[in-house]
């Protein structure tokens, strides 16, 4: 069943809201912020695409946010902006479902809670940190804040989280359990994540991101939230429609693409994942936007928002490898776009969109 995209709300390293994303796409690249971690041997500086969430206080009073962590704040901001974009901020949301896709969950809160447990024992572990570390906390915040009383779900399947969660949203809409789904893809940066990435990717994460060079490790960590308001496609889509969502493993059953299918690929500078794109995409027109929002499992949600925006604008915004002295390429009304993400083991998620 096709799903119509009625609203988009985002926050990430490029800024807050759909206009910030459009501006970043027109530039093709966003400079990551410099993060500093103090170690015993001295400070360590490295680039990261961090999300600012200050627009959230336009929707929710600051005092009401004091027990809500950064992960949930990104989630709430994405949801607020998507509902505003769909003109549903004041609507009855009793039949609105909430589906969250995340590769990592609330990393910082989870590790803060574990640290407090290890440092001070169970009796000094923060109950607020504990409640925010529960995996469905962000989705619950959204459901409660917006009185979205239909089902609420958080899906984690690392790089495949977005495609997997979309299947749940699609099923709810097909069954008539909900009339809308507030669909979000969120991941956050944490110092522990930086440490882990240093261990896994010894070649470093200094950037700049070169997503289409599959021979080098050029990833730069990112974070953010990308939300879509989804309905059944019997309503006219404000942006575009999601035609099909496919999950599989290229080693078990090789992915066959439609010839000349135009693809937004989730290549983000990880060499291990890049080899799958290199083997499959020789004859396809591809773009990749990791230089706009960085590398994290839920970034597929941003690829999806980019595809929807480009189909509405009927413009193909060039990626960081493109020639930005030329205007964006026009897309025909019949144009289709697909978002393809590979995991390191050959798992793939393919999301096909059209107007």
């Amino acid at each position, binding site marked *: 069943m096709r799903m119509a995209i009625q609203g988009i709300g985002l926050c990430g390293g490029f800024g807050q809201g759909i206009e910030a994303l459009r501006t970043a796409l027109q530039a093709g690249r966003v400079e990551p912020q410099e993060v500093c971690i103090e170690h015993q041997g001295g400070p360590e500086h490295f680039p990261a695409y961090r999300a600012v969430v200050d627009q959230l206080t336009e929707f929710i009073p*600051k005092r009401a946010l*004091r027990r809500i962590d950064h992960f949930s704040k990104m989630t709430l901001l994405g949801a607020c902006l998507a509902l505003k974009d769909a003109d549903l901020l004041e609507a009855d949301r009793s039949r609105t479902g909430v589906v969250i896709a995340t590769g990592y969950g609330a990393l910082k809160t989870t590790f803060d809670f574990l640290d407090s447990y290890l440092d001070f024992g169970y*009796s000094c572990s*923060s*109950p607020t940190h504990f409640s925010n570390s529960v995996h469905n906390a962000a989705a619950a915040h959204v459901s409660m804040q917006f009185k979205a009383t239909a089902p609420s779900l958080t899906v984690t399947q690392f790089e495949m989280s977005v495609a997997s969660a979309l299947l749940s949203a699609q099923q709810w809409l097909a069954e008539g359990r909900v009339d809308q789904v507030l669909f979000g893809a969120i991941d956050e940066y944490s110092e522990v994540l930086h440490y882990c990435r240093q261990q896994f990717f010894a070649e470093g994460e200094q950037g700049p991101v070169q997503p289409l060079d599959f021979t080098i490790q050029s990833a730069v960590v990112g974070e953010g939230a990308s939300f879509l308001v989804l309905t059944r496609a019997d309503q006219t889509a404000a942006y575009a429609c999601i035609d099909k969502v496919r999950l599989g493993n290229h080693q078990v059953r090789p992915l066959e693409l439609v010839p000349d299918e135009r693809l937004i690929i989730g290549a983000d500078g990880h060499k291990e994942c890049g080899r799958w794109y290199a083997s499959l995409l020789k004859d396809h027109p591809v773009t990749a936007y990791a230089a706009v929002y960085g590398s994290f499992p839920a970034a597929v949600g941003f690829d999806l928002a980019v595809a929807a925006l480009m189909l509405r604008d009927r413009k193909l915004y060039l990626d960081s490898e493109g020639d930005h002295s030329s205007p964006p390429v026009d897309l025909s009304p019949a144009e289709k776009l697909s978002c393809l993400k590979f995991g390191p083991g050959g798992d793939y998620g393919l999301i096909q969109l059209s107007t």
Partner: protein
Amino acid sequence: MSVKEKLKRVLIEDLNLEDVEPDEITDDMALFGEGLGLDSLDAVELVVIVQKHFGVEIKDMEEGRPALQTISTLAKFIEDRLA
């Protein structure tokens, strides 16, 4: 730094009271309801904060209720236990 001053600082930091400055919390301001506006979830956090930052355990609500009224009562409770 006195116990009262430290209490005000850790309350703001650990309860994320970003809209409050330490000077705005008076010693006799009610911590819950009218006053600082804390609630029952904060009471649980307060028990953890007092143990973590001062090494003083509030064992049950019988001794916690009178201690958790104001900065003054809580500081006195801590100082008595540390004496």
